[in-house]
């Protein structure tokens, strides 16, 4: 693969990950928010951006990275994803406890909460399953199936959650990032389960 093409792929990925965060940094809503609320919001955006990396790393679609290295980074990003979810939920809890309690108990008036909370539990379940995979001696096929099912729940839950929210994310970068996450996940799922 040519150096130019490699550079372009990495550049495009960096843009896809950074543009939404950068655009949200210019949101007029930030001026009315306390630091902890701002951090919670950006943890959510960063989590969505990290979701894009996961199927790309799992499928090892990036140039000049060994399969082993891609797996390792996939694991590290997975841990980072759990931390982003925790920062998002804890930050929002500190900002407004009753709103987060309502969301966690699935009784929130906001229609996007149920999607976000479902995705949160799927992220936690994925982390627990990944940690216990060796101990429980889960077979590769079962592991892949369970992990992919959880990944699909996480992606759909997070994307719907993000799209329904009127928040700091800029409209077009949000749509583009969500679309990329869905497409990347679909490509990886197709590769895994519909090998031709």
């Amino acid at each position, binding site marked *: 693969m040519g150096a130019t093409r490699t550079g372009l792929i990495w550049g495009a990925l960096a843009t896809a990950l950074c543009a939404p965060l950068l655009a949200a940094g210019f949101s007029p809503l930030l001026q009315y928010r*306390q630091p902890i609320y701002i951090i919670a919001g950006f943890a959510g955006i960063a989590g969505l951006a990290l979701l894009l990396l996961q199927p790309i790393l799992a499928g090892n679609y990036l140039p000049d990275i060994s399969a082993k290295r891609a797996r390792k980074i996939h694991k590290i990003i997975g841990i980072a994803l759990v931390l982003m979810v925790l920062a998002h939920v804890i930050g929002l809890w500190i900002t407004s406890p*009753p709103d987060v309690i309502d969301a966690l108990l699935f009784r929130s008036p*906001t229609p996007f909460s149920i999607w976000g909370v479902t995705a949160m539990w799927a992220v936690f379940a994925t982390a627990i399953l990944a940690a216990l995979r060796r101990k429980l001696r889960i077979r590769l096929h079962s592991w892949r199936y369970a992990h992919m099912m959880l990944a699909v729940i996480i992606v759909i839950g997070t994307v719907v959650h993000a799209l329904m929210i*009127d*928040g700091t994310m800029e409209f077009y970068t949000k749509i583009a990032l969500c679309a990329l996450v869905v497409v990347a996940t679909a490509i990886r799922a197709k590769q895994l389960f519909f090998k031709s």
Partner: protein
Amino acid sequence: MRSNIITRRAILTAGSAALTVGVSGLIVPAKAQGLAPTPTMRGGSNNYRPNAPIVERIGGGGFTMTGTVRRASDGMPLAGQRIQIWAHTTEGHERDERSHGATLTDENGVFTMDMPQIVPAFGQAHGHLASENEGFETVFLRPLLDSPDQKSLTADFVLVTV
């Protein structure tokens, strides 16, 4: 055979449904003067502060929250009813004391509060109102703005006597 059963069931269902509608149709006009009470909305009481003071306006103002308060039994406008209002605005978070204020309804049961511009928070641009009055059940509302550019919001209460 199968179609016979479905037909009989359909007739029975339709018949009983018609009977229910017919009977309730006869009952409803008898209390037509009453109004349906306003139910408390989900999340309406979030970040409520009991006994928020009565104020002329909340902060610098610029956004108008209005509405009416009426009695469920006969629809009569209620004067002197205390309505507390709070929201995430350009001047503060929902939890901040300065974001809360109360006002009283006039002789026509109308209340108006001048408050800072409501901005989207927790994913939706919304306001909170509480009707906290002796003799009536407390009701919490959480109306949404159609657009964050909106400069006013209306919320009406129909209260039930305790």
